[in-house]
C-alpha cells in the first residue's frame, strides 16, 4: 500500500498537476462534494469530543460532591441508600471477575478453534465452519443473557451440578460471556494465522518439524500481533458487555470473593440505575456518568495498550 500512497496523494493534491488537470479537478461542485466527504470523516472526531464532554460535565458535578479518591478507592457502593457511599471498587471487582472468567473460557476455546481451522482443517471444512463462526458472532447479547440466567445458572449450576448459588452468579455471566467472545477471538486469530505465508510453514517442514512444532514455533509467533489484538478486543468486549451481566450477574454491589456470588459490574450498574428514573442533575444521575467515564477511560487504556502491543509484535512479510 505504501507505494501506492503517493499516487493517491497527488490525485487529491489539486494544485500540483498540469493546467488541464487542474481545471478539471476544480470543476464546479466537486469542491463541495470533497468538503462534504471531509466533514463526514471529521464527524467521527465530533463523536469522540461529544463522548468526552457528555461524560465529563455530569462527572465534574459528581466529583464536586464525592471526592475522587473516595470514588476510586472506596469499598462500599451504595448510591441510593440514605447513608450513600460511592466507592467504586465493588463494581470494578465484579467487572474483573466476569471479564477474567470470560477470558479463561474464551482464550483456550477461541485459539484452539482458530489453530485448528487455520492449520489442520481441510479447506472445505474451513470454508463451512468459518461462516458459521461469524454467524454465531451475531447472536445478540440479550439472548446470551437469557441463556446464562435460565439455563446455565438455573439448570446447569443449580440443578445438574448442585452448586451452592442463588438466582444470579458472576460465574454464569462470565462463562456465557466467554462463549460469546469465542467467535470474535477465533475469527480474528484465524485471519492472523492464515495470513502467515505458506513458505514459512514449508521451510519449517523442510527442517523436519511436524505440524504441531510448525504451528507452535513458527506460525503462532508470526501471527502473535494479530492474536494479541484478538485477545485485547475480547477483553474490551468483556469489560463493556452490559446485557449478560445485567441479566445474570445480579444487582447487588459487593466485593466479589466467590464466583458463585452475585455481583454488580460497572456496566450492570449503569443499566440498572438507568431503569430508575433519576432527575437530571441529581447525584444519582451524575453517578451514571462518573461510572461511564471510568469505563470509557479503562477501555481507552486497554485500546492504547493493544495498539502498542500490536506494533511491538508486528512481523511484516
Amino acid at each position, binding site marked *: 500500500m505504501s507505494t501506492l500512497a503517493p499516487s493517491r496523494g497527488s*490525485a487529491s493534491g489539486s494544485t500540483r498537476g498540469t493546467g488541464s488537470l487542474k481545471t478539471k479537478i476544480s470543476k464546479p461542485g466537486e469542491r463541495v462534494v470533497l468538503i462534504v466527504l471531509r466533514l463526514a470523516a471529521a464527524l467521527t472526531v465530533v463523536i469522540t469530543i461529544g463522548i468526552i464532554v*457528555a461524560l465529563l460535565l455530569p462527572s465534574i458535578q459528581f466529583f464536586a460532591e464525592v471526592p475522587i479518591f473516595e470514588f476510586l478507592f472506596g469499598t462500599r457502593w451504595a448510591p441510593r441508600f440514605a447513608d450513600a457511599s460511592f466507592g467504586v471498587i465493588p463494581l470494578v471487582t465484579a467487572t474483573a471477575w466476569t471479564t477474567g472468567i470470560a477470558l479463561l473460557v474464551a482464550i483456550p476455546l*477461541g485459539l484452539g478453534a482458530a489453530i485448528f481451522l487455520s492449520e489442520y482443517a481441510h479447506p472445505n471444512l474451513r470454508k463451512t465452519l468459518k461462516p458459521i463462526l461469524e454467524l454465531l458472532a*451475531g447472536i445478540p447479547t440479550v439472548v446470551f443473557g437469557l441463556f446464562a440466567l435460565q439455563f446455565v445458572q438455573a439448570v446447569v449450576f443449580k440443578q445438574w451440578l448442585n452448586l451452592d448459588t442463588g438466582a444470579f452468579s458472576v460465574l454464569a455471566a462470565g462463562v456465557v460471556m466467554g462463549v460469546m467472545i469465542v467467535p470474535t477471538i477465533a475469527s480474528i486469530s484465524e485471519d492472523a494465522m492464515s495470513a502467515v505465508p505458506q513458505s514459512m510453514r514449508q521451510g519449517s517442514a523442510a527442517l523436519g518439524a511436524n505440524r504441531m512444532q510448525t504451528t507452535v*514455533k513458527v506460525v503462532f509467533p508470526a501471527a502473535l500481533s494479530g492474536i494479541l489484538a484478538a485477545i485485547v478486543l475480547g477483553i474490551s468486549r468483556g469489560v463493556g458487555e452490559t446485557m449478560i451481566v445485567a441479566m445474570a450477574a445480579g444487582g447487588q454491589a459487593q466485593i466479589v470473593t466467590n464466583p458463585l456470588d452475585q455481583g454488580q459490574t460497572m456496566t450492570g450498574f449503569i*443499566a440498572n440505575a438507568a431503569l430508575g428514573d433519576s432527575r437530571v442533575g441529581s447525584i444519582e444521575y451524575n453517578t451514571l456518568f462518573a461510572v461511564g467515564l471510568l469505563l470509557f477511560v479503562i477501555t481507552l487504556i486497554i485500546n492504547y495498550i493493544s495498539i502498542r502491543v500490536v506494533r511491538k509484535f508486528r512481523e511484516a512479510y
Partner: protein
Amino acid sequence: MAFSNMSLGGQIQKASLKGRVRGSESSAKSITFLILLWLGLLIAFSVLLVLIVTTLLDGYTRLDARIFTNYPSANPEKAGLRPAILGSLWVIGTVAVLTIPLGVAAALHLEEFANKHNRFNRFIELNVQNLAAVPSIVYGLLALGTLTLIGVKEKNIVLGGAVALSMLVLPVIVISTREALRAVPMEIRQGSLALGATPLQTAFRQTLPSAVPGIATGSILALSRALGEAAPLLVLGALVFVRFDPNGLLSGYTTMPIQIFNWTSRPQPEFHVLAAAASIVLLAILIAMNAVAIIIRNRYQRRW
C-alpha cells in the same frame, strides 16, 4: 533457540529411524495437541448449539400468531411482540439512513482523498479505531447527555435511540467500507484518471461501484449489530410499556432486545417462555441478515 534446534534435530533423527518423513506427526505430544484443538472447536460450537436448542425448546410453544399481533400485557397469555418488532424496524431503518451515507462518505475521504501524511487525517483514523472499541453503553450515556443538554424532556423517542445506535455502528461501517475500497486495485483508478476523469468521478463511477459488495456486507453486519443491541437504549429509557404502534421519528418505542430483557426479568415463568419465543424471532431475523451478508461477500465480491 537452542532448545528448538535440539528438538528439531531430535525429530529428524526419530523420523529417519522410523524411515518415514511424517513419522513425528503421530507422536503422543502432537496427537494430544490435535485433540485439544479439536476439543476447543467442539466445545465452542456445542455450547453455541445448546444455546440455540434450549432457546428453541423453551420458546417454540409460544411462537404463534399472538407474538406478532399482540401488544405487551401483564397477562402472559395475551402478551405479544408487535410494537417491539415495529419499534426495531423504525430504529434500524433510521440508523441505516443515518449511518450508511455518512460512513461511506467518511471512508471515501479517508481512503481515496485524504493525504495520509496529514496529522489530522491520521488522528481521524486512530480515532475511528478507538470509537469501535468503546462500550456500547457509553453511546447510550452520550445520547442521554446530549438530549439533556439540548433540552429534550422525553428521551424515549425513535430518533434518540437511532442516533445512539448510529454512533455505535458508524465506526464499524467506516472500517469495513475502507477495507472494501482498499481491495479495489489501483489500476482501475489509474485507468479512469488516464481517461481524463477527475478524482471525484473516478471515486464515484469506478472505485465505489466496484466496492459495493464489500460495503453491503459490512453495512448489513453493522445493522444487525444495532438490531441486537439493547444497552444504549436501556440507558435512554426504552424499557417502557408500549401499547401502540410507533409511528414516527418522535414516537415512543421499545425494541425486541429490550422486550426480551423485560420479560426475562419478570418472576413468572410464563414470561420467560415469552422471552425465549421473542429470542427465536430476533435470532431468525439476525441470522437471516448475517447469512445474506456472508452470501453477498462470498458470491459477489470480486477477486482481482
